[in-house]
């Protein structure tokens, strides 16, 4: 038997009795001193990667988020009691620091889609009249570097524009840009205070009006999935390479 882990949190002592998790299993709390892990019992052979289970995972995390801001685990965290205990004890300080950082917060996401214009395309030269494979290779490399540089510039521009529009509402921000041949897809993840959700929506609504060439999608509030990870090396912890 393993534990399926939904999230780690502080100050969660009771759960809704009707709460069901992956594989329709009852959800319970495992206490580690001042930290709580929200889990359900699960046999590895019974665990399935299905939409239903992914949504059940989210439902549990969401219900905890109504009480407090947890650190949501990524879908599929199936561990033994010893593994979980070892993980919490060895990362206790980092978990506490992360929980303190997200406390009272929620995640908002903005997706932006813009068609690539001729001006965008001209920043990356086409390889025409290539004399040989060596030159072609170098030109292609140059093109890749220019694309990467353009991506970094866009990230900076976007970040500074969003900060200008949203001001001090942003506690933490993560921006990713995925250019394709025809569109630029950008995503901004923001950690904000719960109490600021309405103000965030209002400010984003105004910002959107200023950029008619860009299509926006704003979603949230979410549990802080994008801000939960502890940037440490775990791979060797359980002897996994």
């Amino acid at each position, binding site marked *: 038997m*393993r534990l399926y*882990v939904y*999230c*780690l949190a502080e100050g969660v002592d009771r759960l809704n009795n009707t709460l069901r998790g992956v594989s329709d299993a009852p959800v319970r709390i495992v206490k580690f001193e001042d930290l709580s892990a929200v889990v359900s019992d699960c046999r*590895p052979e019974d*665990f399935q*990667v299905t*939409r239903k289970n*992914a*949504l059940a*995972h*989210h439902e549990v995390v*969401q219900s905890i*988020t*109504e009480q407090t801001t947890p*650190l*949501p*685990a*990524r*879908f*599929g*965290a*199936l*561990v*033994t009691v010893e*593994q*979980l205990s070892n*993980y919490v004890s060895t990362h206790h300080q980092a978990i506490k620091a992360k929980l303190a950082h997200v406390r009272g917060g*929620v995640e908002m*996401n903005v*997706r932006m*889609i813009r*068609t690539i214009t001729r001006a965008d395309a001209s920043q990356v030269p086409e390889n025409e009249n290539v004399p040989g494979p060596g030159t072609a290779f170098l030109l292609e490399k140059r093109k890749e570097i220019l694309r990467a540089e353009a991506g970094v510039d866009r990230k900076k521009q976007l970040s500074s524009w969003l900060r200008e529009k949203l001001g001090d509402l942003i506690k933490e921000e993560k921006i990713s840009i*995925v250019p*394709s041949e*025809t*569109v630029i*897809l950008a995503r901004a993840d923001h950690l904000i205070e719960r109490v600021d959700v309405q103000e965030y*929506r209002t400010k984003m*609504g105004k910002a*959107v009006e200023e950029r008619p060439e860009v*299509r*926006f*999608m*704003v*979603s*949230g*509030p*979410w*549990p802080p*999935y*994008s801000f*939960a*990870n*502890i940037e440490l090396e*775990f*791979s060797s*912890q*359980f002897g*996994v390479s």
Partner: protein
Amino acid sequence: MSDFDQIIVGEEWEGAELSLLETLDHVLNRGLVLAGEITIAVADIDLIFIGLNVLVSSVETAHETLRKREPTE
């Protein structure tokens, strides 16, 4: 909590579909990574497949939406 409160792109998309895509994106691609995930390594292909499908279908649908809106020259 996860409802789309403001959808400015792609009115052709249903709010529920977007909400589902966003939920799956969060659950599958984000969150605290525990080492225990290795126990479902056999399912990694499925996880990656679902994740890519979500992303690709989102981009493709968005592109199609934009294309339809472009004024014809």
